[in-house]
């Protein structure tokens, strides 16, 4: 279909676009189509020119739609030794959205996170952050500094440091070796740390070594470390695995609190936890999107029941 060709066009064209400010883009094309219609009705241009114009407008609309997204994956494919871990995956996360991603083991959830955070390069497809930044061209450290935080499945914190130092190392700021060597603690830094510790409910543990925290507390500390980076998007991989029920409820509360100001993508197996979050759900299967919508809609989708819930 022609539609599909158009879908792909803006990706190629986009190299030109990033310079334009979002305002330009929003204001410019919105008045354009109307003008185009009046002109065509009066002059009736050559059919080829009209086709080109239609394509250009479709491309602009597509680019505009992408630019308003926070995370934009289109036709992403990645295979390992012939096995397609991600197969033509397309996914859009809006600004301020919280999304739960579910799927059986091997559905490609972790590979998807690896691709977004720069750990793995996709074979094909487009991955854009904030509409304009091509994430496939950056490494982990650069992507983290742009504002994408990632929590691993297994809690990964700096065990020989105190809770406070864990947060301090994660605070947004310069990331050069020389700056770290001559860095001085500031009041602003202390206040920010106190604020984050309050959010993750670890204020009274600030001087405890991370190694001495419980499993649930380590998970929260890691979420706190992500918050310290001041990210726009948080990718959270199975945050409640191995948690007690009380900890699970607390984690859901924490994530909803965070989602008030940032976008959050949660990968989770625990359906009761996903229900607790009550957000839009995407179900992955064999590396592509199987179903998307409310948890009710997704869990009643016959395809989902067949591959995932029905087992």
């Amino acid at each position: 279909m022609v539609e599909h060709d158009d879908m792909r066009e803006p990706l190629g064209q986009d190299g030109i676009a990033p310079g334009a400010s979002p305002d330009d883009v929003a204001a410019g094309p919105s008045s354009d189509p109307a003008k185009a219609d009046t002109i065509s009705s009066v002059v009736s241009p050559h059919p080829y020119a009209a086709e080109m114009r239609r394509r250009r407008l479709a491309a602009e609309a597509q680019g505009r739609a992408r630019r308003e997204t926070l995370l934009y994956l289109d036709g992403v494919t990645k295979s390992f030794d012939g096995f397609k871990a991600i197969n033509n995956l397309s996914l859009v996360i809006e600004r301020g959205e919280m999304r739960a991603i579910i799927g059986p083991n091997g559905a490609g959830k972790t590979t998807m996170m690896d691709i977004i955070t720069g750990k793995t390069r996709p074979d094909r497809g487009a991955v854009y952050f904030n509409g304009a930044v091509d994430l496939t061209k950056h490494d982990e450290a650069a992507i983290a500094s742009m504002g994408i935080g990632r929590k691993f499945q297994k809690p990964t914190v700096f065990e020989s440091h105190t809770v406070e130092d864990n947060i301090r190392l994660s605070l947004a700021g310069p990331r050069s070796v020389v700056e770290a060597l001559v860095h001085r603690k500031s009041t602003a830094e202390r206040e920010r740390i106190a604020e984050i510790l309050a959010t993750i409910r670890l204020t009274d543990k600030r001087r405890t070594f991370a190694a001495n925290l419980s499993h649930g507390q380590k998970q929260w500390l890691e979420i706190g470390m992500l918050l310290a980076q001041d990210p726009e998007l948080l990718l959270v991989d199975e945050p409640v695995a191995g948690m007690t029920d009380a900890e699970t409820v607390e984690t859901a509360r924490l994530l909803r609190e965070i989602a008030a100001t940032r976008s959050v993508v949660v990968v989770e197996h625990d359906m009761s936890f996903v229900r607790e979050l009550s957000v839009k759900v995407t179900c992955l299967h064999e590396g592509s999107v199987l179903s998307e919508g409310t948890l009710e809609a997704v869990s009643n989708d016959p395809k989902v029941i067949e591959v995932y819930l029905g087992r």
Partner: protein
Amino acid sequence: MIIARFLGPRVWILVGLILAAAVLVPLANLALPPGHPLHMPSYLVPLFGKYVTYALLALALDLVWGYVGILSLGHGAFFALGGYAMGMYLMRQIGSRGVYGNPILPDFMVFLNWKALPWYWSGFDAFWFAALMVMLVPGLLAFVFGFFAFRSRVTGVYLSIITQAMTYALLLAFFRNDMGFGGNNGLTDFKDILGFPIQAAATRAGLFSASCIALAIGVLLVGWITRSKLGKLMIAVRDAESRTRFIGWRPEDVKLFAFTVSAVMAGIAGALYVPQVGIINPSEFAPVNSIEVVVWAAVGGRGTLIGPILGALLVNYGKTVFTAIAPDSWLFVLGGLFVFVTLVLPRGIVGTIDHGWDAWRARRRSAAKEKGESGDGDGSILPHPAE
């Protein structure tokens, strides 16, 4: 003095002890008459001086192994390169006093029928140039080696193996006569350093003091680095490298910095070692030497400032004693020591004491709390380190 406050009392006590040794050992050797009970015999001064340079080498290794988790099995190479740079200066100081009496060419070059000094020997007649090369050559090698190794994310045992290969390759290269570094025999027969006769007791005492001062500066430098935010980042890289990457740091930069600084320190240690033992030859590049350094740091306690210094002094003193009593048994003792430390004292001597002390304090504090006495009140189990 911002730094004075920053480093904490333990570092200053250690620096004080080292500087006291820098003064007291030469005094006991030079000022006290030979019959005096506290007199230090002249043969011991360069021996202790050698131990002090080993301690500096162990401290350098500790910076990369103890704090960043890079197990370098090639630190002997940086030590030897620093030593060769100093050896070249000492060779040029011999002048026409060599066996062949050639005013420019060292004896081994005359022996090999060389007509002119190779280009890379020029400049080494000036002490400042040699001193610069002592730091620059090991530093540059470490920088280039580390740049490629860390950028390609070579870690763990693979990195250890390539550092070992590096020192072995240098060993083979320096064995060759046409490298122009004296081949098998290396550089020896030194006469003076900075115009002082190298065999004189006063010169040796001076070299001992210089080694102690270098070690004290090394302690301050490593103390400063490890207590800064960068030091915390180093430990973070050691414990959870991917986590540092995903919060925006570049672990390869941290590793490269530590590795290069460490190599420069090792080079300085080697430069102070050579005039005290009077010879540098390719055997200093032997892989076994680099592994011994790892044993010193492990025995003393890696990841501490005092540990590697203590380990280097104890193990080398043990080596001196054992090789005198039963020369053939030393390698078995060394191997046994490493196995013992790995199994029984994985934190090393200082690490074990520190850990025991912290645990004892924690027990005492919780006991105090149960009695209803008020503790420090912040609810922490362990004290906040290095604040």
